[in-house]
């Protein structure tokens, strides 16, 4: 250090801004060259990118830490090391997600056309056909499941937060926790067993699928709503009571509107959670190649089951079955994405302003 320290606040000099990115680039290039050389020397022509990333990252982290320690001191060096670790962990978590989205879009685009959204699979062998029957089925079954779960879930959460005291409340909380962990196949078997009582063995209908999905959905809705109701400030409840508003009106007109944005987000997340369920629908909703708009009778196709059966039972023209499966997966992903966007819009427009 050539400059003289003039202030007690003055610390060691910082590394110039370009040093860190330059070192990152240098180490990855170095690691890449090394791997290329290794690959050519061992006569293996395949280049493995994983060691490139690992060696590049470790080399970069160690070298930057050492350099920073020498120039900037221990505190800033630790800061740089931790920043590298956190960023690396984040990128690692992001890689599968991006890879998945890319694969689904790339493979799904082949059959993501008008026919896919206007045709069912009735009388179709080989090319062509569509998933309209599965899209309708998914929307109807998930819609009915939502209609069942949301009122029950929200009212149960209101009971737990606003009214519940003592043993019953603790029991409900316990069973909600247990239900959150119920495997989806068990929910499907439950719905099937329930419908067998009324309609006899071998029953298949969309409503059963909706019941199975509700079993999975209700605990999620209860949990999300409960958390949202808990963060409504008690002062607002007291303000309403002090105006001579009865408790039930306070809950409906003060507590619920204040928590609405959060509850809407929770509901959307719970829908996204069950819309991709396959196992319970395979049991109780069954699968079919035909249109069925009536959830109270006969088999009903859904998108996850459509994807599964297209992939599992490939026909003569294999590629067209695989393409349809991917297009179905892409459609399902887009539906979930739209639901998430809707949830964001709802929470934007309904959240308390100020």
């Amino acid at each position, binding site marked *: 250090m050539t400059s003289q320290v003039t202030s007690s606040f003055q610390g060691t000099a910082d590394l110039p801004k370009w040093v860190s990115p330059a070192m990152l680039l240098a180490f990855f290039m170095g690691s890449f060259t090394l791997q290329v050389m290794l690959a050519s020397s061992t006569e293996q022509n395949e280049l493995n990118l994983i060691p490139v990333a690992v060696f590049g990252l470790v080399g970069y982290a160690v070298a930057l830490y050492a350099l920073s320690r020498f120039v900037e001191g221990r505190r800033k060096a630790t800061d740089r090391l931790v920043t590298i670790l956190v960023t690396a962990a984040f990128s690692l978590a992001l890689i599968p997600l991006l890879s998945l989205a890319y694969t689904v879009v790339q493979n799904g685009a082949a059959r993501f056309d008008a026919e896919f959204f206007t045709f069912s699979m009735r009388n179709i062998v080989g090319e062509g056909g569509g998933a309209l029957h599965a899209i309708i089925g998914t929307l109807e079954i998930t819609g009915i499941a939502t209609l069942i779960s949301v009122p029950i879930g929200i009212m149960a959460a209101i009971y737990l937060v606003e009214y519940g*005291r003592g043993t019953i409340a603790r029991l409900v909380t316990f069973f909600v926790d247990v239900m959150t962990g119920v495997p989806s196949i068990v929910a499907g078997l439950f719905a099937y067993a329930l419908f067998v009582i009324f309609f006899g063995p071998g029953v298949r209908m969309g409503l059963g699928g909706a019941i199975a999905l509700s079993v999975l959905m209700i605990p999620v809705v209860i949990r999300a709503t409960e958390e949202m109701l808990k963060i409504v*400030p008690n*002062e*607002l*409840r*007291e*303000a*309403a*009571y*002090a*105006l*001579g*508003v*009865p408790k039930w*009106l*306070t809950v409906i*007109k*003060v507590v619920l*509107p*204040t928590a*609405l944005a959060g509850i809407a987000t929770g509901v959307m997340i719970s829908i996204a959670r069950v819309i991709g369920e396959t196992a319970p629908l395979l049991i109780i909703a069954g699968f079919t190649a035909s249109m069925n708009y009536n959830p109270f009778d006969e088999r009903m196709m859904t998108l996850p089951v459509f994807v599964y059966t297209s992939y599992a039972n490939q026909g003569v023209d294999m590629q067209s079955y695989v393409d349809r499966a991917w297009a179905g997966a892409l459609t399902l992903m887009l539906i979930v994405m739209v639901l998430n966007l809707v949830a964001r819009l709802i929470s934007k427009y309904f959240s*308390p*302003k*100020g």
Partner: protein
Amino acid sequence: MSKRIELQKLNVYYSSFLAVEDVNMVIEPKAITAFIGPSGCGKSTLIRTLNRMHEVIPGARVEGQLLMDGEDVYGPDVDPVRVRRQVGMVFQRPNPFPTMSIKDNVLSGYKLNNSRMSKTEAEELTEKALVGANLWNEVKDRLDKPGSGLSGGQQQRLCIARAIAVEPDVILMDEPTSALDPISTAAIEDLAVELKEKFTVVIVTHNMQQASRISDMTAFFNIAGTGMPGKLIEYDRTEKIFSNPAEQQTEDYVSGRFG
């Protein structure tokens, strides 16, 4: 309308813990009564028993008699909701409803109770309550904006407007200025003095200057120690409490020798 409140042998409990013991006093109509005393002496607890807000807390209960113009507030068939419609309350921290506009906040006492009113009625009532709370001029151009966008002092006056819009007989204020700056505090104090023309006003305050400035009667509460119940030590005209109190404890407190 304003009502006389009589407290007779009033004991207030949280479950088995006796928080306030044996209070006997008469709160006069069309006057400001101030409750003063050190923290934890039960002032806020007592003021919350006056409109039965106390029992919102699980396990809280009251023994003794509380009469409002001779009617027993804790009588067997009394509906606490009806009591609260006649006894308005302003809290320590301003708490306007965040989902409502300024106008809806003022009318919340009606809207939350599903009362119907015509548009002109609603507008007149909004103006009257906001004028009554000295807030009209500041917000008349933005009645449809959310109430949480106002400053702390304005929010507190909005809460007062909300309380007086339902035309209660009694207004309770639980440390209404402790979260406000001196200018907003002065506005609220002026307002309290105006409100006593029409209502019975009870105010809890930590600020002895405030009590001496605005109140007609002052009640001094104290506790013997932690875990002991709070007691009413002295209740008299404000001038007397601050110039020539009968009790030594009161004199020590108002002269700043403790607490």
